[in-house]
């Protein structure tokens, strides 16, 4: 019975080449659109998540003053090295406590100059921010303690000041001091906010404080929470310790802020997720349009089909056999279209992901959903008009206008 239906269905597909191709096309376009859109959207989400991870996992950023809105913050005293020592000593959940202070300085090397951020750091900074040294070395303990004139360049600064030259051992002038370049940072590229993460120069914190800023201030402390420890606990502990050290009584507001990178991460992934849903909605519309296309083709051919069904019934086909034939035809066309759509979508997704520089994420669920939907549409619109015809008396089907 099934073999017979397959034979009849394949003959039907072959004799209606154009109709079959159009049906197929509707399914192919619908399936491919949904898969491509969702795949790219998920790739973008993953890209954002990866960039956030590159900022440093489990990173807490402590700044004096309260962030009160865009560009506004309350005035509050900076941290001191004592605060840093206390955090290191009293909160074991912190893998790294990295104090830093930043100055905007025009760095000069030979005839080139470049305005950049000079960040005073100590030996825990690289770990807290997930930076790695691409060439040369990091600061030594004695350089940090003595406040030596040494620096590590970000990729952008290196490019701007030295071009193709090897900068290691060369000198860069930062205001009054000439720093020896001892290392180069691995490039991180653009941040998810769009700023250049490689536009910076690292020098020992003590060098910045004493020889450039002329104070003892620590403007920001990066806290890296140890693997397996609760970031919430660590954050609460750090807040309690700092309130104590800054003599803030119960009920009074903090005069510092602790920001969690995951907050930003969640916000950004939330945004891209909304985008993915939007793309998915657009794609669903194309799936629907594809479905309507299939429906049109099937309904337009109802008259012709009804007469044919009449002929088949007249020469001895049973209703069930006619139905099985059209069901098999619809299933064959829909699944073939679905498979072609999936192949097309995977090809398009891979090349578009490469073009847009987002990772390619294969989501079998979306593939399955798109495939099933198109199959159902194809089967419904291929099958139901045929069913109506097959239930007629043969003579009525033959006379159908």
């Amino acid at each position, binding site marked *: 019975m099934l073999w017979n239906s397959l034979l009849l269905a394949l003959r039907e597909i072959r004799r209606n080449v154009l109709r079959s191709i159009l049906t197929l096309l509707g399914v192919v376009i619908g399936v491919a659109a949904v898969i491509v859109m969702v795949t790219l959207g998920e790739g973008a989400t993953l890209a954002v998540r990866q960039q956030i991870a590159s900022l440093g996992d489990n990173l807490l950023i402590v700044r004096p003053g309260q962030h009160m809105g865009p560009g506004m913050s309350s005035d509050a005293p900076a941290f001191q090295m004592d605060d840093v020592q206390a955090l290191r000593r009293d909160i074991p959940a912190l893998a790294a406590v990295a104090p830093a202070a930043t100055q905007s300085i025009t760095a000069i090397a030979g005839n080139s100059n470049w305005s950049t951020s000079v960040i005073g750091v100590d030996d825990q900074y690289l770990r807290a921010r997930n930076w790695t040294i691409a060439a040369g070395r990091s600061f030594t303990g004695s350089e940090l303690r003595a406040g030596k004139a040494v620096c590590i360049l970000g990729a952008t600064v290196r490019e701007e000041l030295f071009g193709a030259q090897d900068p290691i051992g060369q000198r860069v002038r930062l205001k009054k001091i000439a720093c020896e370049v001892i290392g180069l940072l691995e490039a991180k590229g653009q941040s998810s906010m769009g700023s250049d993460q490689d536009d910076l120069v690292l020098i020992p914190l003590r060098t910045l404080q004493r020889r450039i800023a002329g104070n003892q201030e620590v403007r920001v402390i990066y806290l890296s929470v140890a693997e397996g420890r609760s970031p919430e606990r660590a954050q609460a502990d750090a807040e309690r310790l700092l309130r104590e050290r800054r003599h803030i009584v119960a009920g009074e507001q903090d005069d510092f802020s602790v920001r969690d990178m995951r907050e930003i991460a969640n916000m950004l992934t939330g945004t891209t997720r909304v985008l993915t849903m939007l793309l998915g909605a657009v794609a669903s519309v194309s799936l629907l349009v594809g479905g309507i296309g299939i429906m049109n083709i099937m309904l337009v051919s109802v008259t012709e089909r009804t007469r044919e069904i009449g002929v088949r019934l007249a020469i*001895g086909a049973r209703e069930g056999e006619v139905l099985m034939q059209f069901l098999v035809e619809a299933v064959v066309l829909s699944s073939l279209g679905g498979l072609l759509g999936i192949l097309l979508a995977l090809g398009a997704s891979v090349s578009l992901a490469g073009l847009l520089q987002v990772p390619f994420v294969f989501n079998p669920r979306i593939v399955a959903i798109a495939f099933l939907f198109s199959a159902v549409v194809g089967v419904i619109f291929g099958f139901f008009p045929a069913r109506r015809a097959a239930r007629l*008396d043969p003579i009525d089907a033959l006379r159908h206008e």
Partner: protein
Amino acid sequence: MPEGEHVHFRERRALNVAATARTPDAEPDEPPLIELRQVTKVYGRGTAEMQALRGVDLRIRQGEFVAVMGPSGSGKSTTMNILGCLDTPTAGSYWFKGVAVGGLDRDQRALLRRHYLGFVFQGFNLLSRTTALENVELPLIYRRTPAGERHRRAREALAAVGLTGWEDHTPAELSGGQQQRVAIARALVTDPAVLLADEPTGNLDSARSREIMELLTVLNRQRGITIVMITHEADMAAYAGRVVQFLDGLVERDGHPGDTR
């Protein structure tokens, strides 16, 4: 026994089983192949009601060649559709080989058409964009005849109607006469007990018409196929052994072709 034949037997038996339960009363000797008793057919409802048949009685024996004549609207096509199980009577009964067709369900009627009846339509009703061979094969596919035998029998049927060499042509590539012959081949390929033909020569010139009629005569005489044929032309009716004249939904006259009023 090949699978196709097996199905074939089972399907025929299913019909006969239904038959024994409803054997007509008082038919001691061989019942006629076809019998209509007081068949009426009403189309439409209310004021639009149209009575196509007003109580037709008709008996056709195995091996007869019957021409059905009458003006249009006299009920001959309706009778033909009822005989072909394409349509159902409003009242009255239709007995086929002693089986009350009215007691059969849709599927059983389909099996009756499949195994006993061949229908040649006025408008050919071939599948378009389908080769002559595939058109003729179609009834055999529903009979589940194995592919090899199917091809052979379809070619033989096409040869019998003189279409050898035209197997791979679609209806659009064939003349009206050739299409009609494909339609006859399709009706014959299953070796039906009865061939029902609705104006088989209606669209053909006289030379082609004579060819078709001679073909039908041969089928009737040599293969013993019972033929019921609607025609408008007395020339064509002359080939038949019996002429049934319809008028206003009733059989007006039933006799030999030579009889005149």
